[in-house]
């Protein structure tokens, strides 16, 4: 199918590339794989690094493990009990927690870093492989979910309408 630049197509769809955040909400994910928490270290937030068999054909094991290990490191940093957390705790106590009206907690700052990291991973690694990594914060820190895009999702992730038409033409002959 021609994919050359031309006039505006008469499609009933919005031919724009959507952010991964929006695509996720429009139910374009066919299946999801959930990586559960690893409680072997207590109640600290850690996720299992065991490679799920459902992702065997979608992504390299090493990339998956690296992502989960990095996430685990971030959460360990957020929950670290040390000098700065004591200071923050004492300050919060002394001000009856009013201090948090003016500043973010250390945990929140790290969560923002995690969010950026996940977005970055999605754009560079997971989206090209037809997967979407979801922030555990949206699932109450219980699981990391890896969603596999359906045909719609793939098309919009890639932003390539020619791909869509190619598939459409193919399916219409069946």
């Amino acid at each position, binding site marked *: 199918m*021609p*994919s*050359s*630049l*031309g*006039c*505006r*197509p*008469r*499609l009933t*769809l*919005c031919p*724009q*590339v*959507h*952010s991964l*955040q*929006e695509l996720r909400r*429009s*139910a374009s994910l066919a299946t999801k*794989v*959930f990586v559960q*928490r690893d*409680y*072997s270290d*207590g*109640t600290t937030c850690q996720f299992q690094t065991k490679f799920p068999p459902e992702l065997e054909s979608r992504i390299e094991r090493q990339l998956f493990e690296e992502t989960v290990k990095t996430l685990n490191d971030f959460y360990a940093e957020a*929950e*670290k*009990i040390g000098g700065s*957390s004591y200071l*923050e*705790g*004492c300050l919060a*106590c002394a001000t*009856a*927690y009013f201090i*948090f*009206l003016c500043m973010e*907690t*250390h*945990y929140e700052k790290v*969560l923002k870093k995690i969010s950026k990291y996940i977005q970055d991973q*999605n*754009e*560079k690694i997971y*989206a*090209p492989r037809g997967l979407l990594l979801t922030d555990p914060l949206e*699932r*109450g820190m*219980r699981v990391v*979910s890896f969603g596999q895009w359906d045909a719609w999702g793939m098309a919009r*992730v*890639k*932003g*390539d*309408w*020619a791909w*869509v*038409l190619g598939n459409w033409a193919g399916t219409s002959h069946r």
Partner: protein
Amino acid sequence: MSVMVARKKVVRKWEKLPGRNTFCCDGRIMMARQKGIFYLTLFLILGTCTLFFAFECRYLAVQLSPAIPVFAAVLFLFAMATLLRTSFSDPGVIPRALPDEAAFIEMEIEATNGTVPQGQRPPPRIKNFQINNQIVKLKYCYTCKIFRPPRASHCSICDNCVERFDHHCPWVGNCVGKRNYRGLGLLSGCSQSLTVLTVLEVLICFFTLWSVVGLTGFHTFLVALNQTTNEDIKGSWTGKNRVQNPYSHGNIVKNCCEVLCGPLPPSVLDRRGILQQEESPAQEGSCPRGPGTQEPSATQGPGQAQEASGSGAGAELGPEVPPLELPCPPPAAVPSNPAPLFGPEWKVAVLMGSGAFCQGETPQLLLRTPQLGLFPAAIQGL
């Protein structure tokens, strides 16, 4: 292609949260349904302190020191702030599993258990983990459809699983869990100091002091051992054949530091996040709107193109292409941003008693006070 610009009332996530909580100030405040005893607590504190400031304070300021009213005022405000913080904040509620996650867990359970013959009861849903050389069992919550994290428990009054569940405290009108336990500790200490100061209001203060000193002592004991009230009442770590507490660092100072000065986790409920609206099919022409901001009133409308996800803008096609008849997927909703996590949740109260009870999955009413039964168990129903 028409674009609908509709000003709809924004639905926030707190409005659809399951569980038996009440929310105020558009989701900024979260409490249990029964608030009667909390109002009593407020009345007692405000009443006692008003009497103190009206009568004794003037006498003490003249006879002893003018610093006394200042100190009393600071203590009063501090106690109120901590009480309202404890009462109004999310105790650490674990959101329930969405259908896809619940189905995934069910699949895993079935795979583990295999086929159960007809008529036989399936095995209990338990996962074993080794924490600090102790075997800890994670129970499955049939209400929330999750395996509860260690130390979490389901409060049958609020109908939520709460992380590091301590107890449901009717005096503060909320559960006490991971996120507001230290608030309760501070409150307890403050109220103790306040009652010492207001000692001349003898009758109220006699009972208050007795109960609050007991409460403070009890919670100091728990903090030193890194235990929750729930675990203490259930005897999770005591007894000959029981496991030892795997969460204790073995050192009182370390335990206190972790519980009182550890990092403060944020709420994962996202109460003020904008809920995805169910749009009508006529809106297929509209493009999804831009990312949501922290402003409370967000409206639906045509948005701008989002940043490309790496592979560039959509390709344009030649004019000969017939219109596609693929169904238009539902428009994406606004991606929610976490609301400010620490809203104006403060006010002041002093914890008057130590009546508390822990609720597990089975609704057994357990009342325990350091004074061994001074306060009646007529808590439910208020």
